[in-house]
């Protein structure tokens, strides 16, 4: 169950307490997140919405261990990541986080297969095992037949599917999706959201999604609004996780 009041018992998958993030821009100090609390359980699908500059991506970066908070703690699956050193945080990220980016961020000189294989290069899996994992991930996103295609040979929606395959291939603890449909047309966006919902409902993945798109947010179990550095639970217009668009 998702809570933003800091009242969770700490047994959830993600536990955020008193999270503060300040940036210095010249002489101006920007307080992006202010004492933010969040509890997310395994299998939850949470969407974060809010105006530009509200700190959605900053929150995602902090949860993914890409950035460090000014104050507060983030605990994921029992590991407090806010005090990990740079290299430990990198190792933690490899094991626990799957990133899905708005611009897909596939490496253009690598095939779909090689892009998806990237996170597995950090594991001790054999070549055959890596191959098997990559094929399963590409099968889940419906692109096994395109595994030898380069990103330039794929449509935007297909590229994002490869991005999702890359995010799930190492079976991370949770997925962080930063506007995954932001660069797609409506049809492709809906297909990507279908896929994300499928990961939640069929594979029990925990997904934290940042989006500007109300239709995409509507597919999440819980929608949280970030405003002036504080999280507020929003009322959903209808629908539930996994419901087709």
């Amino acid at each position, binding site marked *: 169950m998702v809570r933003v009041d800091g009242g969770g018992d700490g047994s959830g998958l993600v536990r955020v307490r008193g999270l503060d993030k300040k940036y210095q821009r010249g002489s101006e100090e920007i307080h992006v997140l202010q004492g933010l609390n969040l509890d997310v359980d395994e299998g939850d699908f949470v969407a974060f919405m809010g105006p530009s500059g509200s700190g959605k991506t900053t929150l995602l970066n902090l949860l993914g261990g890409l950035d460090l908070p000014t104050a507060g703690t983030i605990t994921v699956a029992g590991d407090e990541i806010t005090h990990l050193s740079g*290299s430990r945080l990198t*190792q933690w990220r490899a094991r626990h986080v799957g990133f899905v980016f708005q*611009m897909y961020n596939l490496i*253009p*000189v690598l095939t779909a297969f090689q892009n998806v294989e990237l996170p597995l290069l*950090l594991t001790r899996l054999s070549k055959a095992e890596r191959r098997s994992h990559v094929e399963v991930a590409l099968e889940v996103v419906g692109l096994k037949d395109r595994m030898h295609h380069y990103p330039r040979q794929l449509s935007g929606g297909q590229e994002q599917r490869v991005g999702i395959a890359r995010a799930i291939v190492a079976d991370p603890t949770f997925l962080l999706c930063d506007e995954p449909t932001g660069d797609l047309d409506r049809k492709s966006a809906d297909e990507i959201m279908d896929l994300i919902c499928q990961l939640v409902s069929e594979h029990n993945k925990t997904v934290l999604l940042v989006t500007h798109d109300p239709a995409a947010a509507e597919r999440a179990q819980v929608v949280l609004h970030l405003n002036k550095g504080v999280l507020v639970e929003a009322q959903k217009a209808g629908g539930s996780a996994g419901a087709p668009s």
Partner: protein
Amino acid sequence: MKYSALILTNLLRKKIRTVLTIGSFAVALFLFGLLSVVQGAFNQGVEVAGADRLVVINKVSIIQPLPISYKERLLRVPGVKQVTHANWFGGVYQDERNFFAQMAVEDDTFRSVYPEYVIPEDQWQAYMSDREGAIVGSDLAKRFHWKLGDRIPLKGTIFQGTWEFNIRAVYQGKRTADDTTQFWFHYKYLEERENPYWKGLVGWYTVQVASPDDSVKVARQIDETFSNSPWETKTDTEKAFAASWAKQAGNIQLLLLSVGAVVFFTLLLVTGNTMAIAVRERVRDLAVLKAVGFSDVFVLVLVLAESLLIAAVGGALGLAGAKLLTLSGDPTHGMLPFFYLSPQTALTGFGVALLVGVIAGLLPALSAMRLNVVDALRRV
């Protein structure tokens, strides 16, 4: 090896740029190989000089002779083990461009003072029994397709007339660097035919000392022995003699070092710039690698590996080109008999190429390592 695809595909991202950078390395290392070969050719005498040999020449100049009577006096100098002598003949074979060293030598002593030259015993006996006999180096014989029994005419320049010789022996060097392009014949044959002016004169002496540690002392004693005589001497170790001979062509080493330094510095700038551009172009890709869990050190090594691979491929190609060029031997036909790219030189060149690769890749690699993922992803 699981990361090889990552390195290779990145290099092939801009094929023309990679090929041109590899080409820069290839050209630089080709030049390095060639310059080293030329330097080695000039210094060949220094490389192979015997530590236990001294060269005694006329104090005025090497072209001034010394009396043959000095031999007995040289043998009496303490520390001297053996003495031999030689005369520069300077003949022309068919055409002046067919240059090679020809020397009239004192047979038995010459052979024992220069044990690095190997002559089969039967051929030696054939040579000794023929007044017009000659011994030629294996490379010289190969160059002119000479074989045992061939009669070789040489047109004298210092010693007038046409001189004819019978090839009775072919010598080999024990080491790769030994000069096998020389032509030797009996001093007695020269003495018999030469102008009366030259009778009883030799070009220079080679003195073998009992202990190489005493070389300097013996050399001084020799020069003191003949001081204030009509034929004063100048004695040096064979190494110093060869070095001064090489220096007559100018300070080749300084020239080569200067050219080499400029070439490698330029290469460093070219490759450094290429790697910096390559890193700037893929900031997003490097940020993604870090985001999915690749460490800062991995990214550093990845960029360095690319730089090293360019250096290794380019360096190997350049050195292979230089080697290929030297396979056909001395292009001057006799001026640089030791025209050879040694494995040590090739290895040094390859090491220098890798070093340039590391240095050129270091700054871009460090900037890639320090790349902040959040900033990099926001930038694009």
